[in-house]
């Protein structure tokens, strides 16, 4: 089995007095697609935000990335290590052009060279031809699906080792969702590791190597994508019977 790239141990987060996450343990190996599914408010987004350093973790939590402890590292420094987080709701820069959005994405990589930058831009344009057509348009003028693509492409511009996607299917038409998930598989095949957070459990589990199920701040089940897809409890709770 490949090496572990990201390891989360006893991750706990409080929002004031409210416990959002309790002793979450995750392990992601290089080259995997791992999905974290769960219903609204289960703590999926909080998990990602805690990993990438956007929310404070409770004492005792430990996050290791590429063998280095990043539990207390600042968000922008974690990015510099090669972790990309495509946030929920896309959060592209609306009045920057598509090209400028991509350029902003590359800012996170300190070792970026001009040649590598040009290569990456071409890579994104090949993955997402729509973005090439619209490279001069303002990011905010794109459709929802295109914005999601832009958000992913922007993340890939920093040449990350792990890509964490937060609900990429949110608010998109089923046909667009299919496109996006095909792309996610393609991105993995290009040698990146993927942590995918989804409410749309059936699609997520169908492309995932392994999955975790989260309920009210705790991991309640884990297994391969297939195991979880056929698990009666998961079926009942997330796949509509």
């Amino acid at each position, binding site marked *: 089995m490949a090496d572990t790239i990201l390891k989360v141990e006893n991750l706990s987060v409080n929002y004031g007095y409210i416990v959002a996450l309790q002793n979450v343990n995750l392990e992601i190996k290089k080259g995997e697609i791992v999905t974290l599914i769960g219903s609204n408010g289960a703590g999926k987004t909080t998990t990602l935000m805690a990993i990438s350093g956007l929310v404070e973790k409770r004492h005792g939590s430990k996050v290791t990335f590429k063998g280095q402890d990043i539990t207390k590292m600042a968000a922008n420094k974690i990015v510099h290590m090669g972790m990309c987080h495509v946030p929920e709701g896309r*959060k592209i*820069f609306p009045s920057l052009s598509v090209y400028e959005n991509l350029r*902003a994405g590359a800012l996170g990589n300190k070792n970026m060279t001009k040649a590598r930058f040009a290569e990456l831009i071409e890579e994104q344009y090949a993955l997402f031809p729509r973005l090439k057509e619209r490279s001069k348009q303002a990011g905010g003028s794109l459709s929802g699906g295109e914005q999601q693509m832009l958000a992913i492409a*922007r993340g890939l511009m920093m040449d990350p080792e792990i890509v964490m996607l937060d609900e990429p299917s949110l608010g998109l038409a089923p046909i667009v969702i299919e496109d996006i998930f095909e792309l996610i598989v393609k991105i993995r095949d290009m040698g990146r590791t993927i942590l995918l957070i989804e409410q749309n459990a059936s699609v997520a589990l169908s492309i995932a190597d392994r999955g975790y199920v989260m309920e009210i701040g705790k991991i309640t089940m884990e297994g391969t994508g297939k195991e979880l897809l056929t698990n009666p409890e998961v079926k009942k709770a997330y796949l509509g019977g």
Partner: protein
Amino acid sequence: MGYILNQLLNGICQGSIYALMAIGYSVIVGVVGMVTFAYGEVMMIGAFSAYYIFIYVGNNLPLAILAAFAGSFIIGIVIYKLCYERFFTAPRHISLLCTIGISMLLKNLAQIVFGPETKPVLNVVSNKTFNINVFGSTLNIRLLQIVIIVLVIVLAAALTLFFNRTKYGIMLRAVSQNKDASYLMGINVKRTALLGNCIGCGFGGIAGILLGIYYFSVSATMGSAYSMKAFAASVLGGLVDIRFSALGGLCIGIIENLGIVFTAATFRDIFAFAFLILVLIFRPQGFVSKKGARV
């Protein structure tokens, strides 16, 4: 007719200084994300930095402008550290109150350090006047006015290039649009906000010395009125759009000077603030169309 024409020219000249103030102001509000009420004092510090260049080095305009930029840039660092850095996640009124406090502190400190009296700024630009015949009436253009207008245009163009072409420009714009997403791009948001605050303050400082040269004087209390005008002008741009804020500044300058034609010079401020009130009533979001924002 000639009088109106000359007032229009004065309006454009003064308006371009206001535009520069407004540009600086909207850069600060845009990048830092918080309103400042210490801007007038920043301008005053810039004006004094340049004033001391005039006193000790001589009438060297480029050097004075550099000094104004540097002086207010440094004050920008202080203001950022005291008023913003700790309060990004705090309620917005806290940093706002801090800037009001800093404003009082700087104003009074300046009266102690620089002295309370109004200081003359004379003969920085030669008093040459060009008389041009326009439709039978004479337009008197002072060399000073040309220098100011050209300088503002050059600075605005330089800032536009900086924002659109450089890495730091993209960082500043990214931070002004979405701070969380900027963190996720690996941008050091706090340092970028500091840079934005300082650049905005620097532009304010330059505007300060241009006002000093235009009115032949600087004083420790010169800031307050202009701070409000910079604010008024930026409101036109929805506080954060640089182009529309600049346009707002220009409008206020022209409206003030044309208003004087029909009344008296003492009513100058009434026009600027009546304009602000009208804008706030009829178009509180400013004149920016939100076409690009569909998120």
